[in-house]
């Protein structure tokens, strides 16, 4: 969670910058993980992550704390950028097949390796919305309330979506096993 780092007597501009910097430091890897899971393309994820932070920097003065926490606001910007990227890729018809997440491939042994493989396969079979909620929860590190804020749904609805996705993943993993 982001804490305000402004000290008494600082100018408003400096305070806004320091708050953004703190948000960046605490959220850079989370945003990247969320976008990479959603896009399944590391190069595109890097571009979208950079674009999301730049947009957040440009719009940092428009952030209204009453409308939610900074992380939810930042992930909303990243989500829009990622969806714009998906639209662009769909228009260019370059998404014939999802690229493999090769960096996550590791040499595992035994039962753990089998389970990880099953999880990856199950994750790959999820719909875009289901994969997004997994990305927000387990890779972005958002709370259910923050997920609700990013997706524009109620908190109970977000919890229900997460529960159903987990059940689907669990059954898919069991079937693979």
């Amino acid at each position, binding site marked *: 969670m982001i804490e305000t780092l402004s000290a008494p007597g600082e100018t408003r501009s400096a305070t806004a910058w320091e708050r953004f910097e703190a948000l960046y430091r605490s959220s850079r890897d989370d945003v990247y*993980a969320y976008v990479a899971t959603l896009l399944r393309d590391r190069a595109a994820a890097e571009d979208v992550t950079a674009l999301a932070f730049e947009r957040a920097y440009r719009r940092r003065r428009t952030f209204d704390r009453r409308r939610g926490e900074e992380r939810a606001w930042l992930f909303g910007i990243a989500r829009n950028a990622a*969806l714009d990227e998906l639209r662009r890729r769909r228009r260019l018809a370059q998404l014939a097949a*999802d690229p493999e997440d090769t960096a996550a491939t590791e040499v595992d042994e035994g039962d753990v390796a089998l389970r990880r493989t099953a999880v990856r396969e199950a994750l790959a079979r999820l719909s875009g919305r289901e994969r997004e909620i997994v990305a927000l929860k*387990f890779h972005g590190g958002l709370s*259910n309330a923050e997920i609700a*804020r990013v997706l524009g749904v109620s908190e109970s609805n977000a919890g*229900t979506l997460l*529960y159903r996705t987990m059940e689907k993943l669990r059954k898919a993993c069991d079937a693979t096993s």
Partner: protein
Amino acid sequence: MRLRDETPLDPKVVASLDAIDAVLAGEPVDPRHAELAELALLLAGERPEPGVPFATQLDERVHRRFAAPSAPRRPRRRWLWSSAAGVAVAAGVAVAIVISSGSPSRPSAPPVATSAAGSAPSSASVPTPAAGRAPAAPATARPVAASGQVFSSGAIGRTATLQPPSSGRKVVQGGQLSLTTSPSRVDTVAQEVFDVVGQERGIVNSSTVTATGGTGGYAQFQLSIPSGALAQTMAALSTLQYARVASRTDTSQDVTDQYNADATRLADARALRTSLLKQLANATTQSQINSLTAQIHDAEASISSDLATLRALNNQINYSQVTLTINGGPTPLPAQSGGGGFSLHQAAHDAGRVLTVAAGVALIALAALLPIAALGALGWWVVAVLRRRRREQALDAI
């Protein structure tokens, strides 16, 4: 848009979500949720990590505060330009409406009928007839203010200087003057009329002053002004301090022929009377005396009648009849003194008029801008909804 849903979650769902949160926070979970906890840990373990070169490059960009020019600035500038253009168009429309509708500062006076006064004929084509050619000389009427227009008293005073009667001619002059003032100043203007008439040694034959304090204040005067002072009197009445001239009509009628005829008839009657008196002195019989006495009596009656007629005509020639009315209007405007001078009161009045016009223009501009702003807001909302829908469709298409 965040939806509010007060529907409580199933306890089983809540327990599962709590277990997920607990395992992600590194806390122990109930053995019943061991499988779910393991799945959550495996999912968390699948988290992609950014590469070091990318992280380093992004750190540098953030440190430089994204110094390179970025694209998002452009739409904002376009928005500013489009807003400025919209305001300019609306202002132009407002100014055009104001100009086409005429200046709101000029009051519209009711139509004022101007005609020759008294018995003068309405035709004003021949100002000065030749002497002795017609038994009744035509009259001249000079309507000063055009119908439907209101001029300032100073302007009328300058443009309508009465001409004195030509020497040797007998001319009956007259005039009608209609003034407007504020309802609260009817009394003041009436007093000014009395003062002017007194200064010019004129006579107020009759007067009616009704001051209500509100609209409807009214005064009427019937004045007899020495003909020699008629011009300056009319000029003075046209330039009263708190009144404006709504209309003014000057009339004149050449009565030289009528005057000469009356004078000749009087002289004839007097000559007849003198002759009869001589005959009476030479009369010898009673019947002659009685007859001459009766004729003399008739001649004297005729003399008296002709003399009265001539005196009345002389009075009309020497004193001009002026009818003056004062109307208390709703928008009083003090007259300029000295023919267009500049005073603090006038400046304040002009400033008020400027502010009124400016407020009107602003109101019209606002009326023109509101629909534009509403259309802009509607368009922005439609674009936002469509963009959001397309994004969601992109997510569904994965």
